[in-house]
């Protein structure tokens, strides 16, 4: 059904393109431009700073662990929400969306209240056993998990609903147990939703700022993540380093999305 492009559709297109340009394309482009103002010198300088490389490594570690945790729990919760009936299901479904609506700073503060070593609920007990959560990597992983929690679930749930449970029932009647059914039938049919959820979670985890700022303590060279480095360098008038790290963060996220789009088979897009 090809409709002729009328004046209205042209105006709509102009509005959409203009909106995206002013809000996304132009600012992003300026970051790229600033990063490469002096060729690769900016990036080289940033990467020679041990604080920056440490922050990048820490960001990578925290993000990957958080994504792995969210992957397991996300798929599990999705199966629970779609395939089972239980009291409180609607409440659980609503809870999953909380991280999207609550400000990350609040998440950070909440984690500090529960896990800090002096007066938190679990903090002192954990610290007595030598586990420090707040101002350490576990806290940062928890904060990152929290903010990225809904992304896998919201990708997987609609696909699970669309696929239905007939294939799973067929597998069961053919002799497959629960694990075999999941591995051979359920997982392949939600594969791309899981991959997309993981990519979105990873992108979100790399870019998390508010929650980790509160729980990490932001100690340079120790608990400082890449996003926090960007802020610090920017405020210390090392703009070029700030732009370079920003670019690297954005580049990693965009790269994930591009790779997945290229890998994904055409008919499933």
């Amino acid at each position: 059904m090809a409709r002729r492009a009328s004046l209205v559709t042209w105006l709509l297109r102009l509005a959409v393109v203009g909106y995206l340009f002013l809000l996304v394309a132009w600012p992003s482009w300026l970051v790229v431009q600033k990063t490469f103002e002096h060729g690769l010198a900016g990036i080289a300088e940033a990467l020679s700073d041990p604080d920056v490389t440490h922050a990048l490594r820490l960001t990578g570690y925290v993000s990957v662990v958080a994504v792995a945790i969210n992957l397991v729990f996300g798929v599990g919760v999705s199966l629970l929400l779609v395939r089972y009936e239980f009291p409180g299901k609607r409440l659980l479904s609503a809870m999953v969306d909380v991280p999207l609506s609550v400000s990350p700073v609040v998440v950070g503060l909440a984690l500090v209240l529960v896990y800090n070593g002096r007066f938190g609920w679990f903090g002192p007990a954990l610290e007595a056993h030598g586990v420090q959560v707040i101002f350490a990597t576990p806290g940062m992983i928890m904060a990152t998990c929290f903010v990225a929690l809904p992304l896998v679930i919201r990708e997987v749930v609609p696909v699970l609903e669309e696929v239905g449970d007939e294939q799973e029932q067929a597998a069961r009647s053919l002799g497959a147990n629960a694990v075999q059914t999941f591995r051979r039938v359920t997982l392949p049919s939600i594969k791309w939703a899981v991959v997309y959820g993981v990519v979105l979670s990873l992108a979100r985890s790399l870019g998390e700022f508010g929650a980790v700022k509160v729980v990490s303590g932001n100690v340079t060279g120790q608990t400082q993540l890449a996003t926090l480095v960007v802020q610090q360098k920017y405020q210390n008038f090392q703009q070029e380093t700030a732009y370079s790290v920003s670019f690297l963060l954005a580049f990693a996220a965009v790269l994930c999305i591009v790779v997945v789009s290229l890998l994904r088979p055409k008919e499933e897009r």
Partner: protein
Amino acid sequence: MSIEITGVSKRFGDFVALDDVSLSIPSGRLTALLGPSGGGKSTLLRIVAGLESADVGTVSIEGAEATHLPPQKRNVGFVFQHYAAFKHMSVAKNVAFGLEIRKRPKAEVKRRVEELLDLVHLGQFAHRLPAQLSGGQRQRMALARALAVEPSVLLLDEPFGALDAKVRKELRDWLRRLHDEVHVTTVFVTHDQEEALEVADEIVVINDGRIEQVGTPDELYDAPANDFVMGFLGPVTRLNGALIRPHDIDVSTHDGLLGAVPGVVTRTLRVGFEVRLTVDTPSDGDVTVVLTRATARALGVEDGSRVWLSPNLGAGALPVLAARSATAAR
């Protein structure tokens, strides 16, 4: 007896799907569960397969108690209305699924899959994905997949319901022939009385969660236990206060036979080879009569013709039981 169902009831909230159903299904036969939508026949089949659990009652398959067995331990083959094909696997992989789960040797799996694909005439499609098959082909693949594990019973839930009329008819003939070759105890659910009459050795009529009648197609058609069964197995009308099939009425254009009911044709409708007449009679109101086109033409009946109606010799009729007959004639 291959499947023994005793005192099975099942409720979904307030809705009673099955109400104290007991049924024995014989070995090696093709049995149809026939009834209107929402009557409980699919629920009964799913309880036999273990995909649904009965609230009360027991199920045994081939003499073994199966009430609390999970589906994967019942050794039943199940075929779904919408095929339930494993979309990400090739046709051959779909058929091999049950055998691979059972860890059969590779060579045996390969041989068996080839055999089954030939049996369902899909030999040349082994490497296609289900999405590249037609509906009828997908359902044949699903059947091969269910047969691969050599189930003790084969259960089919409205297997041809999602197919168009022509393919449905072909597959129906084919299922009958396949059953004559394979002889596995087969139960299929349908709401199409023609399908049940044509294919099944035995028909179980289920309505409102209860069994109305069990019998061979001939028994059910010739001696329906009640007006529901009579009405469900084919069209009915009323003549001389009894339920009768519209094609079992003789039409005459002169008052010859004793006891013939006079009337006036108010409507004629031609559908393919048949002509459906609506005759207004003083004794029974509107009576529906079906004639072949040739008979109608020979009689010369048209709107406004005066006719006399009488039951055909050898017609089966059922005395009207109270007021239920009006709803039974659908």
